[in-house]
């Protein structure tokens, strides 16, 4: 990594005593071109997800059979799919559905994982060892297989797919949160808060949680990428969204069946998914590197 750009220059010395640590972190983050580039790309994507379906030129859910497999042009900018629906309009709606679905899955994973990880790491003891055994066992399943098992038991639907993906990734969140909590628990500021007689809940929420946020942000970004892949995989297999609703994976799975006639849309949707996942990974990695430099010498 480029050391010259990230290290605080002479102007940064001496640091103001009560400067918020997040400011230095943000400054480091924005000096990295890859963080800025991936953040910009993701912002555009979110914009597309919010605005896109409203400005879609055609109905994404129904089309004219006469325009099936129509090549790009003549009103259909990206061509028509197997049922003569406008691929561009479907892609716009799919962007919203896939991003929202991944976001919900990550939210579920964090809603379960953060409290469990905090409690397990902070209190330790029997609770911790039982939870960790459970966690290890849950993590010995291949993620996609466990998600398929859960979807299989609950029944295939987009909601159930999101619940499944959230449940599959919750143990990863638990592991990260618990690890960071274990480290934070030994810090002087936690010890002194305890000595001053703070209640456990206050120590956890006011002293530990804010200090483990940065690894959580990194984890959230990388997990968004994973969740998008997982949703795409499940929908590709037909275990996610129900037709006629589009999602990236559903569009890919559908156009895959007509690969011989229309290779263009397969490549298009595949590229959109890949670039999005790449952006989330690059963003997460960049944030991680900026956070890493925060460690005082």
């Amino acid at each position, binding site marked *: 990594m480029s050391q010259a750009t990230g290290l605080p220059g002479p102007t940064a010395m001496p640091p103001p005593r009560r400067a918020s640590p997040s400011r230095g972190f943000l400054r480091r983050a924005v000096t990295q071109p890859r963080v800025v580039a991936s953040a910009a790309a993701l912002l555009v994507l979110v914009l597309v997800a919010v605005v896109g379906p409203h400005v879609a030129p055609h109905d994404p859910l129904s089309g004219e059979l006469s325009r099936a497999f129509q090549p790009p042009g003549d009103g259909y900018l990206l061509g028509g799919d197997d049922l003569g629906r406008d691929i561009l309009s479907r892609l716009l709606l799919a962007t919203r559905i896939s991003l929202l679905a991944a976001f919900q899955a990550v939210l579920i994973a964090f809603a379960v994982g953060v409290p469990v990880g905090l409690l397990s790491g902070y209190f330790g003891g029997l609770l911790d060892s039982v939870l960790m055994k459970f966690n290890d*066992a849950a993590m010995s399943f291949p993620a996609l297989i466990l998600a*398929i098992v859960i979807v299989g038991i609950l029944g295939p639907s987009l909601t159930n797919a999101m619940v499944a993906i959230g449940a599959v990734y919750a143990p990863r969140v638990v592991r990260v949160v618990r690890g960071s909590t274990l480290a934070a628990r030994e810090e002087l500021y936690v010890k002194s808060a305890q000595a001053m007689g703070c209640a456990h809940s206050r120590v956890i929420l006011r002293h530990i949680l804010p200090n483990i946020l940065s690894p959580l942000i990194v984890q959230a970004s990388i997990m968004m990428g994973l969740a998008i892949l997982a949703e795409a995989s499940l929908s590709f297999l037909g275990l996610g969204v129900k037709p006629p609703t589009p999602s990236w994976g559903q569009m890919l799975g559908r156009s895959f069946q007509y690969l011989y006639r229309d290779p263009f849309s397969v490549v298009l949707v595949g590229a959109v998914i890949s670039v999005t996942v790449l952006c989330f990974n690059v963003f997460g990695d960049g944030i991680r590197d900026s956070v890493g430099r925060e460690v005082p010498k």
Partner: protein
Amino acid sequence: MLKFTLKRVVGLVPIMLMVTLIMFLLLQLTPGDPARVAAGADASEEMVQLFRERMGLDQPLLQQYGSWVAGLVRGDFGTSLQYGTPVSEMILRRAPVTISLTLTATILGLLVAVPAAMAAAYKPDRIVDRSTVFATTFGISLPDFFIGLLLVLVFAIEFDVLPALGYVPFTESPLRWSIHMILPAVTLGAAVAAELTRHMRASLRDIVGMEYMNTARVKGLGTVRVMGKHALRNAAVPVVTVLGLQIRRLLGGTVIVERIFSLDGLGSLIVQGVFARDFPVILGVGIVSALTVVVVNLAVDLSYGFLDPRVRVGA
């Protein structure tokens, strides 16, 4: 070494019990009455009751779990609701496809990663190194299904040189087996190759700077010997770790790859199970894949003792 091995093997028991417990608890989430599902939609009340008793669903939960686990230990994974055949039989029949696929993918990954990482680490930050890093970033981010679809497009449709569908057992014709295996295995192996190269390059880079590497060079050993013997052996432990972690990704990825290339392996078995709401099949494949991961992790653990004698003493 024996004591070390035994200790690790015994350590598997609680993890495996937890794995089965997770599956059992998940099964309790089934919407509706499993006995009614098993008996069929238009079964009479007596039939449902009969199924309930036969499936042991009238027993207390703990007892149900106990007898279920006891069955698993005997290799009894239940009977497919859809076909009425034992799930263990179905899994055994389909396992060879998945095993060939994952093994070939792993071997391909190693064949790419070892030379690539050695070439990259030999002269850090030079052109070979930089292009390797670039390629691995792509290999890691590209989803399995995209790589697979692109390969089908190029090699099966555009140039029509390799088959895109089907599987031929190795015992039937090794040549046709390998021809059918190329595209799926490359699809599955690409991510493994990228991940392995990345980690191997990193650990080789540390080693290339070590004193004993200089000593080896000064002694007059050739590049191949220096990199192959001195560096590779010492880089083995982290690489084996990463290789072990790949098994989870491989087993997950095989579901997608089997779908793309129409292979009848465990991945397509579980997907068919979901569509048919065939719970014993779903659980069976789930447990077998978790078991595989746990056993592979054990093998990785044991290999540390083999690769690095200090681990044995520490254990």
